[in-house]
């Protein structure tokens, strides 16, 4: 008998069931999973997703800027970098390389982020109003390290892609992608720790700053 069989058998015996797990029992579990039942929601989850998203970002110390169109992003980025006395260079996702970064005076590197990069630039699959959360998916053109290694993570968020709850975000993910990618990454503010004397310090192993640029 394998460890697997022994563990499953012990569960069966302890649960007063005989034999191995039956096909009917598995069908039952799958049917219950397929219902994708949602739990009770707090009333905050029913607020306007965009306004809730902005106020929750503020609470999490994610800064938010808003521009009129995607074409205005490079200038908004340049002004953010200047304001924070950061170098005018970012490493970003390939999907963003088409923008006219050079005109705004920003060097845009389209490659995988490394430990020397100071600013990483991504967009996101969607965002969640209830908690001010960005949802990023891994993929060939969307490596996760851009949002992790640099001290500053800048994320372009489309207002149309801000959903109310995490349940809505997962629903959208199933609709558009079918299955989960290798990494589904939900980011709520810059990295932090309170491991020394329960004192919150912003900037642990991930970014010190998360900055959202909202586009229509």
């Amino acid at each position, binding site marked *: 008998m*394998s*460890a*697997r069989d022994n*563990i*499953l058998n012990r*569960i069966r015996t*302890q*649960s007063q069931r005989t034999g191995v*797990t039956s096909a009917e*029992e598995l069908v039952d*579990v*799958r049917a*219950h*999973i397929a219902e994708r*039942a*949602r*739990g*009770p*929601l*707090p*009333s905050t989850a029913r607020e306007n997703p965009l306004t809730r998203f902005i106020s*929750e970002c503020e609470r*999490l110390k994610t800064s938010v800027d808003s521009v009129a169109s995607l074409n205005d992003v490079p200038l908004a980025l340049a002004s953010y970098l200047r304001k924070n006395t950061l170098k005018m260079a970012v490493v970003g996702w390939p999907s963003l390389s088409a923008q006219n970064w050079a005109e705004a005076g920003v060097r845009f590197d389209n490659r*995988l982020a490394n*430990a020397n990069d100071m600013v990483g630039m991504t967009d996101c699959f969607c965002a969640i109003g209830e908690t001010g*959360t960005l949802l990023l998916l*891994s*993929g*060939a053109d969307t*490596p*996760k*390290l851009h949002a992790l*290694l640099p001290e500053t993570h800048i994320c372009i968020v489309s207002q149309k892609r801000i959903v109310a*709850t*995490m*349940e809505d975000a*997962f629903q959208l993910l199933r609709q558009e992608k079918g*299955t*989960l*990618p*290798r*990494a*589904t*990454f*939900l980011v*709520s*503010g810059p*990295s*932090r*720790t*309170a*491991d*020394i004397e*329960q004192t919150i*310090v912003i*900037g*642990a*192993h*991930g*970014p010190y700053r998360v900055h959202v640029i909202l586009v229509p």
Partner: protein
Amino acid sequence: MQIQSMHFKQTASQKLNDAVLQTAMKKAKGKFVDGRAAAVAEVDAWQDIRTYAAAMRDRVIANLDAYLIEFERNAIARGAVVHWAETAEEANAIIVNIAKQNLVKTVTKSKSMVSEEIALNDALEAANIEVVETDLGEYILQLAHEPPSHIVAPAVHKSKEQVADLFAAAHGRPRSTDITALTREAREVLRDKFLNADMGISGANFVIAETGTTLTVTNEGNADLVTTIPRIHCVVTGIEKVIGTLEDFATLIRLLPRSATGQSAANYLTLTTGVKSADELDGPEQMHIVLIDAGRTKLVGSNMAEMLRCIRCGACMNHCPVYQNVGGHAYGWVYPGPMGSVLTPAYIGIEKAGDLPNAATFCGECQVVCPVKIPLPDLMRKWRERQFDGALRPWHERASIKLWSAFATRPRLYALAAQVAARTAAILGGKQKRITWLPGLDGWTDGRDMPAPAGKTFREQYREQHRDSAIK
């Protein structure tokens, strides 16, 4: 982790006289308790969500075999290798073997209490593999060669001065007691470890049957680096962590960070599903998931099965007056506080952990704050009953409980004994009407006096007053 639970009483006494610990615990108590209260107050459906979550966890635990099989099927479909381990030794052997087969020299780890349970670091080091803890609290404890004292904030017992000493000795940099500088120092020192590790080991807050996903809930970003950069990702977790769907996760994550640290959202929720595809630039080539029993199946179907609902938030210990005063190390194993007082006897045996279910005032606060409504005081009482039935408590304690029950179940005898006791205690109290010494209880009366009773029992006084009012 080495079991020290049998020394609870002795260690607890030492901890009460440990000035650094007492300062640390007082600081932490306010932050955890007030933080949780504020975060919970924002969620008007809190009680409904708790009830729903408890039922959701119960449903899975009642069909644990089927949920695990479904999880395994979906994880395998995405390229993960699923291993099963009945014991800590088996789990360690599996992980060491994966490391050896892949010529792994260095491992980065994100915080995992299950790995503390099985003493995974010792097993890897014995095989000459370097292991680096990357959660700041766990890293501090690795330098100090100490076990965690809290499941969420493992180094809660350490002062910044102690951390400064550890860092100065280990890093050879100038000593600083500034918390921001210490955090930065750990970031800088650990960066190279993250980038050069061959294997990343993480725990899992939950594993999702629907998708074959394992996931971590963190704030520092270390779990993300650990599960993204190395070529092998190994997940070590308990079989009870399985949940049904992404929606179930969405419900539980409304409860977990609020209960744990008073946060409305944890910084990073990282759902990992299988291995990287050929065209991806980052992510592991191999994913191994080690599902561990190590005592959990003993709770399935038992009268303590509710304990398997636990989502490891730590609220029960944060709100426990015993934990708040003695800290986590006194409990002598991985899981302190009320949840530990139920789990530890189940996992390592009641004969080694007998004091733990008794280390409670039964104030009931742990049950009130538990996000999945585990009746912790009830479960601790069940352990006490088992200890009594199994003759596992000292003879004098069992004798006095037997004696008590002999009186308590015979009303006339009880009334008579109460009369004798009340008269004697009144005499003992003397003119001051304070009892300063009781035979056999000098440990109690050394530190405190007790007001002496009036000399008559409640029943006698009631009877007298009733007679008086009847005459009028």
